[in-house]
């Protein structure tokens, strides 16, 4: 791609060429994220329906595949109502403040060894910073709405995010120790060489904790007390309608995808193949299955997205105090204990990282 652009516009400097490439990459990632959300809404409703012994959306288009398109058009054409006593500027700023970090976090997520928008050294820290930035959008939405339900929802969201951010950070400390780098690409490279080297085996508790706190971070079931339809109507976005509400929706689903792809990268070897040790396949037609490719990364991501929906269909919502108990008294101690165990593993030289 670099050669193509240099040959087409020979007057450009190297910096300008890399800028153009970055912009193209950003457009590719953002467009595919929005397409993903359209797909995900349909996927979620269909899976949820099947788990309820229903058939889910089936009216718009064959098997209902255009359902989310119809939903999008409906949401975009609805009126954005701004409550009379709401803080107008903040009210409109909040959804944007939620969406921007959700998309910006994808800058450091590598989709394969080459495709990466920004190859920064502190990728993991950048991710932690941006995922926790999303809570400002939630708090601001609740505060600017000037409604007690919205405010209650955002207060709950803030407390929940603080609790689970710590567990999430600690889980990532474990990954950092094992991977030996803050770069996501390097973490995946540390897991290469077969399924036994993937971090989910030595770091199994951290893997579970990371995914649970990821679910809590995105305010998804069963941790959606910030929305809590039954008790506070729709939580922080109760006053939003039309396109503004659609942005909240978009941010939630993009965050879901982010957590899923990060779990795949940190614990399931990213783009590494499940069958990389099966040398029998090497000369057969299935030889592409051994190669590390984006196919593996996306199928692992899709699996975790399925788990998101699965969780939502299975469990009732946590009560607020149970949620806090789980965060502070269960997940954080487990991660701390397992980091200690990991240290011992380092000293004793057990684990996939010691054999290298």
């Amino acid at each position, binding site marked *: 791609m670099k050669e193509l652009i240099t040959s087409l516009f020979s007057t450009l400097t190297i910096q300008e060429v890399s800028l153009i490439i970055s912009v193209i990459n950003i457009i590719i990632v953002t467009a595919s994220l929005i397409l993903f959300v359209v797909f995900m809404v349909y996927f979620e409703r269909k*899976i949820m329906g*099947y*788990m309820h*012994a*229903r*058939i889910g959306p089936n009216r718009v288009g064959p098997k209902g595949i255009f359902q989310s398109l119809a939903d999008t058009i409906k949401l975009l054409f609805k009126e954005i109502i701004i409550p009379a006593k709401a803080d107008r500027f903040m009210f409109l700023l909040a959804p944007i403040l939620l969406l921007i970090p959700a998309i910006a976090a994808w800058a450091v997520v590598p989709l394969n060894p080459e495709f990466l928008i920004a190859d920064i050294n502190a990728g993991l820290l950048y991710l932690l910073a941006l995922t926790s930035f999303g809570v400002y959008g939630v708090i601001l939405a609740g505060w600017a709405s000037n409604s007690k339900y919205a405010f209650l929802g955002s207060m709950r969201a803030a407390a929940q995010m603080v609790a689970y951010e710590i567990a999430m950070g600690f889980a990532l400390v474990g990954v950092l120790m094992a991977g030996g780098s803050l770069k996501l690409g390097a973490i995946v490279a540390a897991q290469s060489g077969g399924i036994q080297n993937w971090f989910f085996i030595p770091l199994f508790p951290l893997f579970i904790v990371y995914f649970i706190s990821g679910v809590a971070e995105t305010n998804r079931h069963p941790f959606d007390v910030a929305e809590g339809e039954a008790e506070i109507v729709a939580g922080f976005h109760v006053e939003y309608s039309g396109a503004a509400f659609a942005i909240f929706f978009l941010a939630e689903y993009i965050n879901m995808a982010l957590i899923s792809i990060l779990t795949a990268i940190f614990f399931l070897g990213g783009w590494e193949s499940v069958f990389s040790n099966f040398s029998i396949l090497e000369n057969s037609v299935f030889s592409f299955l051994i190669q590390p490719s984006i196919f593996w990364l996306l199928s692992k991501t899709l699996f975790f997205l399925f788990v998101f929906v699965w969780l939502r269909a*299975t*469990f009732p919502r946590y009560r607020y105090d149970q949620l806090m108990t789980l965060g502070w008294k*269960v997940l954080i101690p487990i991660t701390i204990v397992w980091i200690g165990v990991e240290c011992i593993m380092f000293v004793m030289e057990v684990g996939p990282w010691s054999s290298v």
Partner: protein
Amino acid sequence: MNIKHILKTLSMIDLIKGFNVTLKALFREKVTIQYPEVKTPLSPRFRGKLALMRYDNGEERCIACKLCSAVCPAQAITIESEEREDGTRRTTKFEIDAFKCIYCGFCEEACPVDSIVETNIFAYHMTENHQRIQTKEMLLETGDDYKEEITTNRAKDSKFT
């Protein structure tokens, strides 16, 4: 918080059981009925929109005894009556407020001449507020239109009443 409880919680056995239930449900046969195309069977006792019936000679059955209006728990029925030239008592006004009616079927049970009946029409609508009042003419029309259906349903149910 004994050790058994802690081990049970940490093994997440209950969560796995729950996941198992929903995963099985994912592959279970679906029970959705595609409503406007496919409909569920209705019982002959189904209580839907009200109607007034006529005798076979075209005379209306209702004798304005007002038992239905008396028994109606929602007080949805309004009746006014007069004596006709031939000496029979008939209604001049027979109105049912469709918003008040709770489809309990007490009026049908109370009626001594089987005039007021409930059809199995459950999907009907009105576009203006005043249309909720169903006049005598409208009720008689419903009875005429669905006479066959109503009589077969009554025949099916006759040995149980």
